[in-house]
């Protein structure tokens, strides 16, 4: 895909939750750039901070207890973390669209599908009521909802999970956003329905050229969709690479372990390798590599210093003191 100008530049984002048990350090310094028309996959396991970091960009986390404590999010020459609530509301659903995991919980159960789509059109565009209804119909046809005309009058509970997710996509693209943030949009769906949704997303992406951030735990889904992938662990990006490079030559031991623990449909069953141990507690800010306790290559430095992302090849970065190519510690 074409790599255009940066549309979204995030640097040193930090998000915390103040809980009864202490401060939970969910996101610990995340920096990345999203380019025009780019499809960026964000992968990680539960608790890795992948959703919280992306939701923090537009302050879509519950505040309190959540708090974005540091960082800048440059979009359209503005820092989204500094602008007023009114301005932020114009960006949300307007220039930045969202698709959430569970469409049943993110659609309003007492409003018809048509009402919900036109609502955002009223807020963000100056279309007349009639034009908005027409546009809503076109959007539903675009996402391949059968009987789109009828469905405008349906309530969310009358639709299946796959159809609701199509409605969510229609709402996300309603105002022709520059960026869409999709948070595990196919996780709650069956595999044949997931395939339908992925097919639509592929088509739309060609047609609309929107930049997409696609958050998922499924390494298979990103493989077929993304241009570039960020791998997150314990609230930090541990690896960042173009998609083919990431799968062919993963550099970070966590990425390597993750890829090795995924069973493949097209290969016979051997014993799966697994990553020993458990993800770390997030109640203290990391001062050394969070993966070190589970890492097969960890040495002294890993337990003392926090590794920053370093460039290993064009567009390929890893946050690790161990060099995957030589199998030795790096010297810098």
């Amino acid at each position, binding site marked *: 895909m074409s790599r255009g100008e940066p549309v979204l530049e995030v640097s040193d984002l930090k998000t915390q939750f103040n809980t009864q048990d202490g401060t939970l350090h969910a996101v610990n310094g995340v920096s990345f750039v999203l380019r025009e028309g780019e499809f960026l996959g964000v992968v990680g396991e539960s608790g890795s901070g992948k959703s919280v970091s992306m939701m923090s960009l537009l302050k879509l986390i519950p505040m309190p207890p959540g708090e974005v404590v540091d960082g800048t999010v440059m979009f359209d020459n503005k820092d989204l973390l500094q602008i007023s609530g009114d301005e932020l509301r114009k960006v949300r659903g307007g220039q930045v669209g969202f698709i959430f995991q569970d469409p049943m919980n993110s659609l309003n159960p007492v409003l018809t599908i048509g009402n919900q789509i036109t609502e955002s059109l009223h807020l963000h565009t100056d279309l007349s009521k009639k034009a908005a209804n027409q546009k809503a119909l076109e959007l539903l046809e675009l996402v391949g909802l059968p009987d789109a005309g009828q469905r405008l009058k349906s309530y969310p509970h009358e639709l299946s999970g796959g159809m609701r997710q199509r409605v969510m996509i229609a709402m996300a693209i309603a105002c022709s956003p520059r960026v869409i943030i999709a948070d595990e949009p196919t996780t709650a769906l*069956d*595999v044949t329905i997931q395939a339908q949704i992925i097919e639509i997303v592929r088509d739309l992406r060609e047609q609309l050229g929107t930049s997409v951030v696609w958050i998922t735990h499924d390494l298979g*889904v990103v493989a077929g969709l993304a241009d570039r992938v960020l791998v997150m662990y314990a609230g930090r990006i541990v690896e960042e690479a173009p998609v083919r490079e990431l799968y062919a030559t993963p550099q970070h031991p966590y990425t390597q372990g993750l890829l090795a623990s995924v069973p493949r449909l097209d290969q016979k069953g051997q014993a799966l390798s697994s990553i020993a141990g458990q993800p770390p507690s997030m109640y203290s800010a990391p001062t050394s590599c969070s993966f070190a306790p589970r890492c097969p290559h960890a040495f002294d430095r890993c337990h003392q210093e926090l590794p920053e992302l370093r460039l290993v090849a064009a567009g390929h970065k890893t946050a690790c003191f161990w060099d995957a190519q030589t199998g030795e510690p790096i010297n810098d």
Partner: protein
Amino acid sequence: MTDTATATNPSDANDAEVILSVTGLKKHFPIMKGVFRRQVGAVRAVDGISFDIRRGETLGLVGESGSGKSTTGRVVLQLDGATDGSVKYRGEELTTVSDGRMRQLRKEMQMIYQDPHATLNPRMTVASIIGEPLVENSTLSKAERRTRIDNLLNLVGLDPSHANRYPHEFSGGQRQRIGIARAIALNPEFIVCDEPIAALDVSIQAQVVNLLKDLQKELQLTFLFISHDLSMVRHIADRVAVMYLGNLVELAETDELYDNPKHPYTQALNSAVPLPDPVLEATRQRVILEGDIPSPANPPPGCVFSSRCPIAVEKCSAEVPVWRDIGGDHWVSCHFAEMT
């Protein structure tokens, strides 16, 4: 509806002892309506399925939500009564067995559930959760029981010194290990694993699957492994059965099923699973199914898959295809299985 399909069982090709034999099994849940709660219909969760499980093997049972795979697991263990058909455990008919005898048999037939949060009592310590089946079903003394619990914890890779902790102190993967320890406490023969890894993270899934495989080898266990994750089933199962809308559509040895699927639904399922390989994904041919899985209260006439099948013809919505062995212990219910 599928009487013709229940005539025979997939068992002849292999000599291993058949430990569980299911024939024409049905489970319908009545739909009640009105003041008098009259029955107006039925959800045909399981609608006439037949299969055998052989000693020491893992039979994978895959399907999408609503296909009836979990209900099958529950009916096999008689946690729900069958509407029709037979379930034979080592030749003994379970659907008509007395409650007392069933209690004895339960020692040999256990279940591992999906959600380890919901299936462990939060007010019981790990030792009492694992020890409960031992109290009920064995004559061990307190000290012997304690030794057995420690052994079980070791076996599933947990620290015996954690025996007095409560479930909330463990992570999801560890909780699933507790559930496994409880299931194997009475030395069962046969375990139904109902989506045991669906709630876990990828790296933890691999740990639990490897544990199940090790335990199977060590304790000669037989598994019915229910899952929607086709990739994981390929790794753990010896044979795989594919379920759609209460019916089995295909059953074969694992590699045969994945490399040479005969039923159009199996083919579509296979091609819908994304591969963790960007190079392959870019060139892969996909069969995208139209529409959603129909309601099991109102399944389509004829072949249950006919409403979504890419190769369906008139015959498919008129005649129920026969569940048959097309050679090499490969069972399919599709009119065109011999031609593809």
